[in-house]
């Protein structure tokens, strides 16, 4: 059992740090954290990964979205201590030191970012969606983006960019696996649809 501060009795609580080990973008880190340290603050101010942005700290804006063990998470809605033993992916890890990913490129070409503050969270969440549902349709993409506040673009170029990557991916699949029309990338968005590897437990 992990244990943080002892129970307070009237007096202000004395916080005691807890040792955690995390793997962030493939690098293992051992740190001591107070239980209340938010994952967003841990990433930004302890590890210096300032690409994860903080826009609301109550889970609405989506700017701080990262992946923890392959599952999307608002970094402002988790305590760093909860990620002990977990693998964390942030925007800095997407392209690393290499070329931009297709999604990053698509956003660039479609002018899908202006101030760029919402962009890291969108990259993580949309990347996750495209991994789970490679042929995601426009409605799914729009539903995804309802969890990401963007005040600059009016969203349309972001939706366009993600849709283009989804279509390209679906096109590849169709060409590779079937002889039929590559345009027919119908993922139909039925959340009850079978065959989707959506069980978060297996998604790492």
């Amino acid at each position: 059992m992990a244990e943080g501060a002892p129970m307070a009795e009237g007096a202000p609580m004395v916080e005691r740090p807890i040792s955690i080990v995390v793997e962030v973008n493939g690098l293992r880190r051992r740190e001591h954290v107070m239980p209340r340290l938010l994952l967003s603050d841990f990433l930004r101010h302890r590890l210096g990964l300032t690409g994860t942005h903080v826009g609301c700290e109550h889970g609405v804006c989506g700017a701080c979205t990262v992946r923890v063990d392959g599952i999307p998470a608002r970094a402002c809605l988790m305590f760093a201590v909860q990620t002990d033993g977990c693998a964390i992916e942030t925007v800095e890890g997407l392209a690393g030191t290499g070329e931009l990913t297709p999604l990053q490129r698509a956003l660039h070409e479609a002018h899908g970012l202006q101030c760029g503050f919402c962009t890291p969270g969108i990259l993580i969440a949309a990347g996750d969606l495209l991994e789970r549902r490679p042929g995601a349709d426009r409605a799914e993409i729009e539903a995804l983006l309802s969890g990401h506040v963007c005040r600059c673009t009016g969203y349309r170029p972001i939706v366009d960019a993600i849709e283009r990557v989804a279509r390209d991916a679906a096109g590849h699949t169709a060409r590779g696996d079937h002889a039929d029309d590559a345009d027919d990338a119908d993922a139909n968005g039925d959340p009850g649809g079978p065959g989707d590897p959506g069980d978060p437990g297996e998604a790492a």
Partner: protein
Amino acid sequence: MTDQAVATRGWIGRALPRFEDEALLRGRGRFIDDLEPVPGAHHAAIVRSPHAHARIRHLDVSAAEAADGVTGVLTGADVQAMSRPFAAAAPSPVPYYAAAVDTVRHVGEPVAVVVARDRYLAEDAAARVRVDYDPLAPVLDARAAVHDSDALVSERSFHYGDPEAAFAHADVIVGGRFDFPAWTGLPLEGYGVVADWDPGAGTLTAWCNFQGPFTLHGVAAAALGLPGTRLRVITPEHSGGSFGIKSGVFVYVALIGLASRKLGVPVRWTEDRLEHLAASQTSTGRCAEIEGAFAADGELLGVRIDAIDDVGAYLRAPEPASMYRMHGALTGAYRVRNLALRARVVLTNRCPSALNRGFGGPQHYLPLEGMMALGARRLRIDPLRLAELNLVRRFPYETPSGGLYASGDFAGCLREARELSGYEARREERRRARRAGRLYGIGVACVVEPSISNMGYVTLVEEEASRGNALPKSGNAEGATVTINPAGGIGVRVSTTPQGQGHGTVVAQVVADALGVDPSQVAVRADADTSFSPWTVASGNYSSRFSGVGVGAALRATEQVAGKLRAIAGHVLGADADEIELRDGVAHLRGSGDGAETTVSLRRLAGMAHWNPEGLPEGLEPGLAATAYYAAPELAPPVDDRISASTENGFVVDIAVVEVDRATGRLAVIDYVSVHDAGRLLNPLLAEGQVIGGFAHGFGAVTREAHAHGADGELLTDTLKDYLCPTPADLPAVRTAHRETPSPLTPLGAKGLGEGTTMSVPAAIHNAVMDALHRDAPIALPLTPARLWELIDA
């Protein structure tokens, strides 16, 4: 020379994706909270008022000062002792300090600043500050506030032409009350300041995501009792949006600066979302009554406006500018010459207002275009036709209130919008829908979009007679520096402090054309450092001024450097400077081939300028750099209460087609067309981004975004679960078109376009909903399902 040179090359006008993107896509943006510009900064948490209006009976910070990790506490009394009230563009009955002294006047007003080792400890200690309040009755109704001399900031009346006669001769008079509640552009990144007071030098350095106008630098410096040179403001390379809202950062430069000064340590503060929603800044709320006098044939004869602006708890500079920003375009797109305006500005117990996208425009066009819609309904003339009948047709056109519409093709835009929307088919669809009992409506808005504000327009708040004593204010100027280093690298510095608009890419396009290089070779910095950047009091990111004056300054400076390159190249090639052409990174002797004797590379020229001043033509300064300033023309101080409030005036025609669900009141936008004339588009990709982004703000304001208060003044929209921004599924697919009537007044023919749709969309959608519901009167904003259903059900 300039125009021709630019026209023959070709980076300007291309839909070039941005150079800014790559860093942002990799998570390598450099925003204020990412920076550690000074070592060991302590963290501030601000104790804020939970009341809209209350007297502070007692403030006890001793428990906070004794708390773990606390450096110290700055109180309102400290602020009063260490600073002066902020100046604004008019005298205010209530002095405005960076923190409340004995009375709090809005929810979220700073009461004390607690500084500690980290933000967590600062918030722990802030929770231990004890404040005893005596709640007072809040003033939230601007119409009632005009009767209170402590609330009324200013009152002025303006008459142009003969409005009395126009109304006396009218066949039809229509009008109504159009209220525009305060809302916010809500940048995704809040305010941030890192303040470092140097007691030895008596200087304050403030890193902050301020956006200008840099008039406010002077306001903050004066409040701190510092000569301007002792307040150094440095903005980070990136800023997470602003839409005007971050002009208010200057208040916190003062507050956090004072904390640093009192406690002797650098202090940093990053605003959280609750603070932002309660207390950063909002648009100006407006209560307007408007009347339009029409002849039976549809001619608009006269307009009367009675406007009350609610600027919130304090008059925050540049307020009361919202009232006057549109002054040159009060008559909008129409030829009407008779106009009366009563302009009153009041204080209430809401968050202070100031810049917000559209600044005064949405508030002006909702009533003006609403009046046109009501007129069309009463006259039984199609609204698009009524607009067409009254449009300004000859350019240049001087409006009755002094505005100059230098160029344009309003009628052409309207025709294009009609075609693009399939207007006749939409009307037919409306007939069919109505026969089936559906609530289907069409709305039109014609909007003149001013850009590049005249720094003198705010002086309209003063009577003509008292204006004479002060230094006249006019114009709008920007500076730029262009340098070429010894290796031929090109650097540009402007002070337009973009918050996502892509100024760097556009400047690179402009400079690339002027120097004959690829834009990827031009490194642009548009963030500002008041110690080193070329700037003017007008610098900053507002009034869609970049494409005119920002670009103008960059072009001027580049031309000076280009002139020098030509002179050196001519000297090397044995020709006159004006025989030299710069292209593809090489200086060519005009009219000759590309042989070694007739060309010299830019890199070599740069090397010569730096390394071999002895080899330069006689009389030429060494080095390759120029700083130049550019001031937009046609922006004189006001005369006879008439002013050209903006250099340029673009044009927007929107046609909205909507349906309201009878059962739920839900509003669906079936089609939306927006046709713009913003002059020459410097980068169509970025231009479209501004139009669609501006649309989303206007759409938010008309459909859901408004700050709401309870009866006791408590803020109901205090989280993002209650202040609701539109999502992609809500936003209709806007169809746009651009006509490009070049501006004769800006260096490259561009007109601003960052705010037009924010101005037009509320009016067009509101008009469409009035049409759908067969209303003869305005509907209060925002047009939520509940509000619309209640009208349907009534």
